[in-house]
């Protein structure tokens, strides 16, 4: 099982961000951090989870680094018995707030993997994205994490923006691989509703040629692509989602899935603080779960059990056209870029 903790606080809101995050609620942080403990203890008991069940913990946001490490202590205390001894424990952080002190304290609590929201090394692009950091903050944060003893380090980059040029993307990759990273995520800019960029959708501009060159450049540095946006030593946590592992979500707007139920808490921070045990359940039919397995499997190296696909002639057609291959009764997309289209074709 996977464990996800959501930290809904940020220093600033990025132009593209549709996540559940708040920039003005810092005074709620302490209260919030005690309520997540309540929820965790309740859920563990309700579900009668055994010790050491979680093989991963992922702290995401928002920006987990906007919350003092001390405020995480109680959470780790209650969670620790339920973590496997070799659990992958990741925290997200932003380059401006991931200080050596914070990172070192988190390392002491058990964090062994860092996912850093770098987005770009280009100052112009960082400003345009409304990021709170400059490029030197990325270098400093990565080195600080390394010094703090976190050796599994990932950075996020964003592409498919109107500012991109082949040269800009190439420089971003070169700068990234100077750093001691083991993983890289590269996300195409997606315009989401209710974000500042939604008013100017033309800021997202993707050239297939540039995307393919970007993937090749990352691969040339020895980072294999294992999902449409992820390269290098896989995140066991994220891979778990695509493998359809069950997961528990803790915090405001955190989502979980246990067997055929997807679970939702209050999204609003105040509502969550008032009632951290509240949840709504979404029932997943066998057909829903089948579709999810197909779409998750095709976008990653997980692949799809061929028994899930009723029309085998469609599989043959994909193989014939060189778009997919089958190994040990699992179907894999040759290019993750077409994952959704292939899923539609198989449906």
């Amino acid at each position, binding site marked *: 099982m996977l464990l996800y903790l959501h930290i809904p606080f940020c220093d600033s809101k990025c132009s593209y961000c549709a996540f559940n995050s708040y920039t003005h609620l810092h005074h709620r942080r302490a209260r919030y951090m005690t309520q997540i403990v309540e929820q965790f203890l309740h859920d563990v008991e309700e579900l009668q989870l055994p010790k050491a069940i979680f093989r991963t913990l992922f702290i995401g946001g928002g920006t987990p680094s906007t919350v003092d490490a001390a405020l995480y202590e109680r959470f780790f205390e209650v969670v620790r018995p339920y973590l496997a001894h070799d659990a992958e424990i990741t925290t997200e952080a932003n380059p401006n707030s991931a200080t050596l002190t914070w990172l070192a304290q988190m390392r002491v609590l058990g964090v062994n993997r860092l996912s850093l929201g770098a987005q770009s090394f280009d100052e112009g692009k960082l400003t345009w994205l409304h990021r709170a950091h400059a490029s030197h903050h990325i270098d400093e944060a990565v080195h600080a994490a390394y010094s703090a003893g976190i050796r599994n380090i990932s950075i996020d980059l964003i592409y498919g923006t109107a500012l991109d040029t082949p040269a800009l993307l190439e420089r971003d990759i070169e700068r990234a691989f100077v750093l001691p990273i083991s993983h890289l995520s590269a*996300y195409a800019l997606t315009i989401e509703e209710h974000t500042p960029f939604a008013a100017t959708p033309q800021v997202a501009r993707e050239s297939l040629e540039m995307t393919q060159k970007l993937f090749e450049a990352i691969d040339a540095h020895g980072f294999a692509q294992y999902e449409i946006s992820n390269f290098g030593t896989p995140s066991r946590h994220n891979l778990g989602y695509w493998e359809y592992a069950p997961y528990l979500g803790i915090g405001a707007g955190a989502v979980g899935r246990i067997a055929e139920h997807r679970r939702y808490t209050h999204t609003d921070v105040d509502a969550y603080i008032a009632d951290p045990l509240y949840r709504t359940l979404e029932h997943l039919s066998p057909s829903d779960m089948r579709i999810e397995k197909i779409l998750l499997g095709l976008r990653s190296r997980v692949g799809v059990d061929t028994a899930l696909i009723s029309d085998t002639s469609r599989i043959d057609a994909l193989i014939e056209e060189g778009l997919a291959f089958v190994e040990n009764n699992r179907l894999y997309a040759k290019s993750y870029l077409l994952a*959704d289209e292939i899923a*539609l*074709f198989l449906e």
Partner: protein
Amino acid sequence: MQNIRNFSIIAHIDHGKSTLADRIIQECGSVSAREMTAQMMDTMEIEQERGITIKAQSVRLSYVKDGQPYILNLIDTPGHVDFSYEVSKSLASSDGALLIVDAAQGVEAQTLANVYLAMENNLEIIPVINKIDLPAAEPERVAEEIESSIGIDATDALLISAKTGIGIRALLDAIVERIPAPVGDPEAPTKAIIYDSWFDPYLGAVGLVRVFDGAISKGQQVKLMANGEVHQVLDLMYPHPLHRQKTTIINSGEIGIVIMGLKDVGSIKVGDTITDAKRPTAEPVGSYEPAKAFVFAGLYPIDTDKFEDMRDALDKLRLNDSSLSYEPETSIALGFGFRVGFLGMLHMEVVKERLEREYDLDLIATAPSVVYHVTLTNGEEVKVQNPSEMPEPNYITKIEEPYVKATVITPTDYLGNIITLLTNKRGMQLKMDYLNEKRVLLEYSIPLNEIVVDFYDTLKSTSKGYASFDYEASGYQEGDLVKLDVRVAGDIVDALSIIVPRSQSEQRGRALVSNMKELIPRQLFEVAVQASVGNKIIARETVKSMGKNVTAKCYGGDITRKRKLLEKQKAGKKRMKAIGKVNLPQEAFLSVLKMD
């Protein structure tokens, strides 16, 4: 009988026929101002939207002139060439006709055809120039045009505005003075013509009749002369768009609605004669001809599960439209559907729209086709109404196609463009008459196939909407024709086959595939789109394969949303037709229709 006047209104679309009818009803005090909705004579939603009359309506009105009460029976006529048979029967039921011409537009092609029909029926024609309140009105020029194009005296033409009410009284007086009272023998055996019929949800199939001799009484046993059926008259009514009035007898010279408890309009056909079952009249009123389909098209439900629903919908539509003919048809590309016969292009559009709107069906229509007479090498003659069923060329001795005589009236400004259009459509000029220095009447012999596809729209855009058009069938002629097939990913899409002149096949094929290339969304695979005649490929385009369809992020909190998005995309694809492994949108099928 001396105080009855039966009259029709003849007018081109937009020349104000329905407005005038409404104004006359109001002037006779038959409907209060409060009850007046816009265009009450056009009751079907589609009629009101398009400003056309599809089903004829009638109304019985009272009018007093010089202290004398009169019954005025207004017999409305369908305003479109597709329904000319119904028009002819409405006119046969009238003793006079108002010829309405727009004071700014002048005489139009469809008006001409109907005026000639009225003249054949020996009707008294009263020319009426409408819309004289418009700034662009030129009543004198229009009167001149009526004289030169129709050859009737227009010096006494009435000048009116149906919109403002100018001249309506004078018009009603003229109807009384100039249109003759009906003649007939009240003592003779019952003789009445059915000039319209429709399905009423409460009364069943009913007929609207004009009684010539004798009378129709409630309880009477009557015979329908064309099919020999005998029925009892259950009820009789005088027609009115809002309040029909019950009666026990419809006398010689009158019009009325006959209710016999019939289940569908197929047994009470327009043009048939009603007579007394025991004492029948010797001769029917005029000759009865069953409605004949002129244009055929395949109609297919996009959702293949809806085939039975579509059959039910067609069965219901036929209750009200005996001219509708259909039979099940199978297409490799489109699955199960129907080959439907229509009276013309408007009829086809109206039927398709009603099926979609009133029966909630999503339909794909194939390119409309005419009926070809094909002589085979073994001497046999076959009729082909579906291009995909055209025999292979080596079995064919000759193909004959239907021609029409097309009449176009246009301002001289567009004459050049219209002649070019007609020539491109393989038209042969029969006549060119200047109605005056500004307007020209053209008559062309032209293959029907050339006008069933997109002709009317092109004519309208070529002439900024000023040219008008009418046609009538004029027999079959041999043509050098071939079947043009479309192949998608190598397979012939049977629903897209069309019959074209051999000389145009390459050009049409190229246009077709380049058009389709734009309309086929990129697929997972590269898709070849080809046009072929027999085994010979005459044009080819390639739809490149898709580059990307995947979203960047999909973690624990995104999965439900992601699944729903995929389901939505799937629903979108379901609206397309899967041809092998290729999804074709409806527009790709329709592109065959728009090819110039």
